[in-house]
């Protein structure tokens, strides 16, 4: 993925650290971000999608599971349902709104899980070095060499989801796969950031003053090594949402009656159906793509803000 590029372009940011006027790296980045239209566009999109996931009834009062076969594949119209109806006569607009919850929870929880695990492993490896570093690096390589989709297929095949499992259980299962296969990426990034920050004077000074290792890590190394991780985590959020959709498309991710964009797209993507009811495919795909795009743009904007070379 593009992590290699991200890693490369980020490397100098950590070296520069606090900028000349005494502003912290974070404050400088925020000032830079405030003037970016792309940042605001993606932020607004993300806020809308988060609202959709938390309070779907703000956007629609239709029951997304109510099916009326007499209205199957109804075309979009301003009077009836604005996005049309699907193969079973369910309202596509309502389903698309309710689908946000599954996708966003997989994305957010998956990112949180990978980041927490990766951050811890990367910090340990970078800070202690030596055999801890070697062991953790080899361990990371093992998990890293299983491609995300293949590992996901294997895991979800082995532990299939029963139809009556609540949404959160289905979501957590996918999150577990993402965390298991995704952490080495973050760990690698964190490790190199820590190793760059570690020799800095302020870390040596803290050590000379007798600070405990935990204090050095948490209040000196972590805040200064965190920037690249946040950027990649934001971009990964979009990637994870797409991965969930792909797994659901293959029929092993989220199971109906759980509503997700991936499984709705899967339902809509038979060749006959695409010709008969293209709106069934269009709207969930559009929302899914916009969500992924919003997180990628946000990650890009944050990276540019942290990278003084591009200013």
């Amino acid at each position: 993925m593009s992590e290699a590029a991200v890693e490369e372009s980020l490397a100098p940011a950590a070296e520069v650290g606090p900028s000349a006027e005494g502003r912290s790296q974070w404050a400088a980045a925020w000032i830079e971000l405030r003037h970016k239209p792309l940042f605001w566009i993606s932020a607004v999109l993300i806020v809308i999608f988060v609202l959709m996931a938390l309070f779907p009834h703000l956007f629609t009062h239709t029951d997304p599971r109510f099916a009326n076969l007499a209205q199957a594949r109804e075309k979009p119209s301003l009077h009836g349902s604005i996005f049309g109806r699907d193969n079973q006569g369910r309202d596509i607009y309502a389903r698309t709104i309710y689908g946000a919850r599954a996708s966003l929870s997989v994305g957010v929880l998956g990112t949180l899980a990978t980041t927490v695990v990766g951050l811890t492993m990367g910090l340990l490896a970078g800070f202690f070095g030596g055999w801890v570093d070697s062991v953790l690096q080899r361990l990371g390589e093992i998990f890293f060499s299983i491609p995300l989709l293949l590992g996901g297929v294997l895991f979800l095949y082995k532990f299939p989801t029963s139809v009556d499992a609540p949404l959160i259980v289905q979501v957590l299962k996918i999150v577990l796969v993402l965390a298991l296969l995704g952490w080495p990426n973050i760990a690698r990034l964190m490790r190199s950031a820590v190793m760059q920050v570690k020799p800095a004077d302020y870390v040596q000074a803290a050590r000379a003053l007798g600070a405990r290792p935990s204090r050095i890590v948490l209040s000196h190394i972590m805040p200064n090594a965190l920037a690249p991780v946040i950027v990649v985590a934001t971009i990964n959020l979009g990637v994870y949402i797409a991965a969930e959709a792909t797994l659901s498309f293959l029929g092993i991710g989220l199971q109906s009656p759980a509503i997700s964009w991936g499984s709705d797209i899967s339902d809509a993507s038979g060749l006959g159906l695409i010709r008969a009811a293209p709106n069934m495919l269009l709207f969930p795909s559009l929302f899914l793509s916009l969500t992924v795009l919003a997180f990628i743009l946000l990650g890009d904007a944050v990276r540019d803000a942290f990278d003084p070379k591009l200013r």
Partner: protein
Amino acid sequence: MGRYIIRRLLQMIPVVIGTTFLIYAMVFGLGDPAKGRCGERPCPPAYIAKFNAEYNLDKPLVVQYVLYLGKLVHGDLGTNFFGNQVSQELIARYPITIKLTIIAILFELVIGIAAGVLAGIRKNGFVDSLVLVSTLVVVSIPIFVIGALAQLVFGVKLAWFPVTASDGTIGQLILPGLVLGSLSVAYVARLTRTSLVENLRADYVRTARAKGLSRGRTVGVHTLRNSLIPVITYVGADVGALMGGAIVTERIFNVNGIGNFIYRSIYQHDGQSVVGAVTILVLVFLLVNLIVDILYGVLDPRIASD
């Protein structure tokens, strides 16, 4: 150089053992391995006993794993529901998947590098913005939507390409190959652009320009050669994503390759086939990355010598 290759080979050993153990432990160590072997019903005790004996499940996990590894080395992936050797099923299908992957890689290299170079030469120009916007669009649309749309537009409506690719001839595989490579084209283009822009600022480029070389020669010979190193590494890592993507693409275009085999085996609850095929794909992925790493050492001697 020889020492570098040997070191890389030695580093591979723990990774191969680790990944195969991980897959093995997940499939046979956790939960009930015989579950789902008898369709929807629970298995009869006689079957479970035979199954446990066949896969050495009555022995400790590590012993089981070593025995399994021994079988794997001999190419024995077990038999599936239909009584066929999984390895035979894979041998029948791999040429098609390889063809599909090669089409995708060629597509991403040729189009991706060309777009990246055009964008990088004139930073912030028209082509640059076009590449940036189109890569963002491709990156954010999931591959199965691109596949379904391409099938509808280029296969059904315009009839430029065959709609399905069940025979697996090159002509039929072009459209699925383009779909499979579409995401990576975007990444290759952005990566080429970034590293070209960075290298164009380097001192050796200024020297080359100063001694009077044409712009075409400085870009084409001096800069591009250095800029392509990260692209090669990316393509190696990308083979893993392509193999996952092949499951989706082969399903959409009904290609008779390994991806579609995995997809159908998932639906038929044919665990032996799923596990065998995924294990092989992961091993192929490791091998490709080893080759790319060695190539990396050839292209950039600094890597091999440290």
